[in-house]
């Protein structure tokens, strides 16, 4: 046991409508009570269009649903530094958090589609199969923001649902995932 590799999906080949979807029981995905902690590693996620990298989930009451029902409350802050050293920042991002909203949760904003841009990082989801507790999540992503900024984004919160979660969808807010690989692990 330990950090157990479950599966990986790479865009564009594994993409479904431009997104990468991990659903329990499909394509070798295990997303149930086998583990009480799951991690998703994002490697060089590259957007078709300048946009935000984000996720949403479906619970077991909404199999194959539209990733538009689960309510999320979250925090999001970020730090960035411009390549020419002219600007630095640390601050809370009001526009990237959610308050009991069923929208996609932004993990990295304004990822540019310039050829060498993109974002990488890790999302941890705790005990998605619990029918007692809300589902905590924590992510840290590094991105190239509007081409000339190095940006680190800290997002965390909970999916306010005591129904088990068994599907998660990753996508950019504008256009398809042009390239990138997501590795899924169970933490045993």
């Amino acid at each position, binding site marked *: *046991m*330990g*950090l*157990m*590799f479950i599966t*990986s999906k790479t865009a564009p080949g594994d993409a479904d409508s431009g997104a990468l979807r991990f659903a329990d029981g499909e394509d070798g995905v295990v997303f149930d009570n086998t583990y*009480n*902690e799951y991690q998703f*590693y994002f490697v060089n996620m590259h957007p078709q269009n300048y946009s935000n990298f984000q996720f949403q989930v479906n619970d077991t009451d909404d199999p194959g649903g539209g990733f538009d029902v689960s309510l999320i*409350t*979250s*925090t*999001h*802050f970020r730090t960035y530094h411009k390549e020419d050293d002219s600007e630095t920042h*640390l*601050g*809370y991002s*009001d526009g990237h*958090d959610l*308050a*009991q909203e069923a929208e996609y949760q932004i993990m990295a904003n304004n990822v540019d589609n310039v050829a060498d841009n993109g974002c990488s990082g890790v999302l*941890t989801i*705790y*005990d998605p199969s*619990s029918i*007692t*507790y*809300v589902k*905590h*999540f*924590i992510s*840290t992503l590094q991105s190239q923001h509007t081409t000339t900024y190095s940006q680190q984004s*800290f997002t*965390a*919160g*909970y999916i*306010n649902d*005591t129904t088990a979660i068994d599907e998660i969808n990753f996508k950019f807010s504008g256009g398809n995932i042009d390239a990138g690989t997501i*590795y899924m*692990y169970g*933490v*045993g």
Partner: protein
Amino acid sequence: MPHTLILPIPLDITTSDTAVSTVDITSGIDSTYPVYEFHFVNMVPSTSASILAFQVDVGTDTTYQQEITSTTIETEHDEGDSGAALQYRTNRDQANGTNYQQLGEYIYDDGDTSGSGILTLYAPSSGTYVKHWISTFSAYGNATPQISYHTGYINTATAITRIRFVMVNNAMAAQGDIKAGTIKMYGVT
């Protein structure tokens, strides 16, 4: 193969089905691994408005009062969207203090509320350096997620051999029990 990129080894898994005042891990922390991770899943206190905290000790000592200097950042956002914050928490840090080091904010015992996160401890067996640690913890209470980013060092050059987890109050004093939750300890190669 992707799964060879990192391979934590689970050394100790403690699941509390009944309330316990402390979770003490007194073996397995040695020079075998340079980095240790402690993963917390759905930690629940028996007393609402409690905070998960830790302390460490050396040798076979059991006082758990090592000196810690730390920094503590917290961000929060309530479900009603009435407020959000990113702030330094001056009442969570220590300056060579020997209290329990808080890992997050209040957790309530309110049915679906709990706290989850990770504490990473670097080179605990070093006989040369102080012991750095970094934690990220999400606590849910009072209809608000509060996410804490705490870091610091245990100010001793003596090897750390044991760690204690406990619920504390705002003043860093032990309070109530750990009612439920799982703590997993990994050695990271």
